[in-house]
């Protein structure tokens, strides 16, 4: 039997692909076919496939955004009857909640992440400042400007600027939460005309202009990672998984100088961090459900974590999914482990904002229309960052297009 698995081409997944020999060894009757794609391409492919019942995949890698929507449509197979030693209860509750509907698990988390501040201790010291464990945005702004030395190619802060709902909008939505902003009010009215959003975006654009790298509007996770590893960023606020990359001396020039802190806040009770888990799900209607479940269980099991640890060291274990991992004394030695757990625990998808909202999702709104809308809004914000439109105009456009799209989609429902 051949399982076709769609995965994202990030480091953890590629590693899983390489280690999957262990699985096929144990299950000689199962062959694995991999479709490894870049995130957006993957999402389009699997979404098209599942929505049209193309049936090309047996296992799909999807995120916390898709799971509730797809589960609601009945497109996903419930993950019940997993082996006993799988220990569903070991999964971090925040993550598990995001992947369940009516308490039924529809996807198994492969790794989970939040966001946090990664910074260069040496540069911080040079700037004569000290990073608290829970910084405020004000501090970040000040520190970033102090660390910037454009002539030397050092930029105080690297933040996502590339348009896309999973790129700049993930960051900006989470940030906006900490500024007290929200996407929609309880009547599903767009909120980009509020002062909170203006504050968020102004702060972001000013900061990036003063202390960001050139071309920030094209920088996504990858670009910033490269910049940071290359020693060009003083701080970087991004996914917690990045911690293992930036502390890996093979790839990173600054591995021994990286410190971590919680994502900043504005004293409003919400931090600017998100919650995301790349998870494995099985489309409803696959004929290979048993084998698929077997594989999902293997890839997200405790044993898999140990397998990675024994092969590649604890620092490279897919993080953010299991309590037991964080209780493991070996893993606690990893410098970013504690901070990652704290960040994940600090995010609350069901109550993401200062004011009440009708939706779930920290850095996204779990409605099908969100991808399109947020990508368009992301384009506007990227344009503002690139200086092609003013912040004011970008917000106006965002407000207009969101309102349009929501009314087209028939909200409030």
């Amino acid at each position, binding site marked *: 039997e051949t399982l076709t698995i769609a995965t994202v081409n990030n480091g953890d997944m590629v590693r899983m692909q390489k280690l999957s020999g262990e699985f096929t060894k144990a299950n000689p009757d199962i062959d694995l076919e991999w479709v490894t794609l870049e995130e957006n391409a993957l999402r*389009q492919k699997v*979404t*098209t496939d599942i*929505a*049209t019942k193309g049936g090309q995949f047996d296992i799909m890698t999807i995120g916390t955004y898709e799971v509730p*929507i797809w589960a609601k*449509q009945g497109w996903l197979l419930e993950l019940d009857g997993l082996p006993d030693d799988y220990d569903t209860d070991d999964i971090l509750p925040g993550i598990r909640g995001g992947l369940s509907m009516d308490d039924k698990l529809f996807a198994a988390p492969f790794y989970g992440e939040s966001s946090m501040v990664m910074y260069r201790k040496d540069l911080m010291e040079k700037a004569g400042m000290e990073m608290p464990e829970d910084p405020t945005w004000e501090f970040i702004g000040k520190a970033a400007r102090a660390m910037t030395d454009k002539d030397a*190619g050092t930029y105080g802060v690297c933040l996502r*600027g*590339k*348009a*896309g709902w999973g790129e700049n909008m993930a960051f900006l939505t989470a940030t906006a939460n900490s500024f007290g902003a929200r996407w929609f009010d309880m009547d599903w009215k767009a909120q980009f005309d509020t002062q909170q959003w203006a504050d968020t975006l102004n702060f972001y654009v000013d900061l990036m202009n003063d202390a960001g*790298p*050139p*071309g*920030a*509007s*094209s920088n996504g996770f990858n*670009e910033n990672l*490269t*910049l940071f590893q*290359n020693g*060009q960023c003083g701080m970087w606020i991004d996914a917690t998984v990045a911690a293992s990359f930036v502390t890996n001396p093979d790839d990173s020039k600054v591995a021994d100088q990286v410190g971590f802190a919680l994502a900043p806040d504005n004293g409003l009770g919400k931090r600017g961090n998100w919650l995301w888990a790349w998870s494995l799900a099985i489309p409803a209607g696959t004929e290979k459900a048993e084998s698929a479940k077997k594989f999902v269980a293997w890839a997200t099991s405790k044993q898999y974590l140990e397998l990675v640890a024994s092969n590649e060291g604890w620092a490279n274990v897919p993080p953010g999914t299991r309590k037991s991992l964080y209780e493991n004394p070996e893993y606690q030695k990893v410098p970013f482990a504690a901070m990652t757990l704290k960040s994940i625990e600090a995010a609350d998808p069901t109550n993401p904002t200062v004011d009440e909202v009708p939706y779930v999702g920290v850095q996204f709104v779990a409605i*099908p*229309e969100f*991808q*399109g*809308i947020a*990508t*368009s809004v*992301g*384009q*506007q914000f*990227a*344009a503002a*960052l*690139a*200086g*092609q*439109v003013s912040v004011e105009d*970008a917000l106006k*456009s965002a407000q*207009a*297009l969101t309102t*349009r*799209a929501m009314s*087209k*989609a028939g909200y409030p429902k």
Partner: protein
Amino acid sequence: MSTTHSRTAGKAMLSPAVILLFLWMIVPLAMTLYFSFLHYNLLTPGTSFAGIANYQYFLTDPAFFEALGNTLAIVGGVLIITVVGGTLLALLLDQPMFGQGIVRLLFIAPFFVMPTVTALVWKNMFMNPTNGLFAWLANTLGATPIDFLGHHPLASIIMIVSWQWLPFATLILLTAMQSLDSEQIEAAEMDGASAVSRFFHIIVPHLARAGTVVILIQTIFLLSIFAEILVTTNGGPGYASTNIPYLVYMQSLLQFDVGGGSAGGIVAVVLANIVAIFLMRMVGKNLDL
């Protein structure tokens, strides 16, 4: 040649191609047309009749006019660069020189490169404002690196696409140039025309046919430029580098709004046909098909 027999055979031989192409065109097009009148989102099951709502939304989308402008800018910009540049380069290559064969190989290479690879290479290794080669060049010269994709997205895309198509234009125009009857040039020389006059009065008009082909073929491909945008700018910032195909793509594959995407597709088809009519006029005049 034209006996009843051969005419019948002619029809029989032509029909497979015509019928297949017709089906290939009409079946999906009809489905698209049908979808365009539906509320149909892949992510929300069920469809319902939408009237012209999808068209309304697509056509009143502020992105639409920007995308229309960008589409034309890309087609026009690339055409101008490749045709003018191609003519000049062809003129250069037509001169006697050493190693012409190898130079031709160097010239044609970009045409063989996958668009995706082209875009990836340019974006990452050249235009990246911190790690790209251009940034390095600017730094070495003491200038500030330009953020190509952030600040000049459309121009950057035009540049990348021009790089891909310049070889095509150059080599076709070169072939055309080499086909120019040398007696004509000599006649012009006898008539007292200077090198510049010969270029404008004899060579350029001679290239008209080849130029037409270059324009036609390139327009066909340029109208649906997509991979380059997807890889480099994602249509942004804002809508600065979104063209019509990309806009339709956003509707269909980002929002999974099949209804809206179909409406966009139909609009794109109509626009492409308008361009096609103009183009075909020109072709009909310059190429005796």
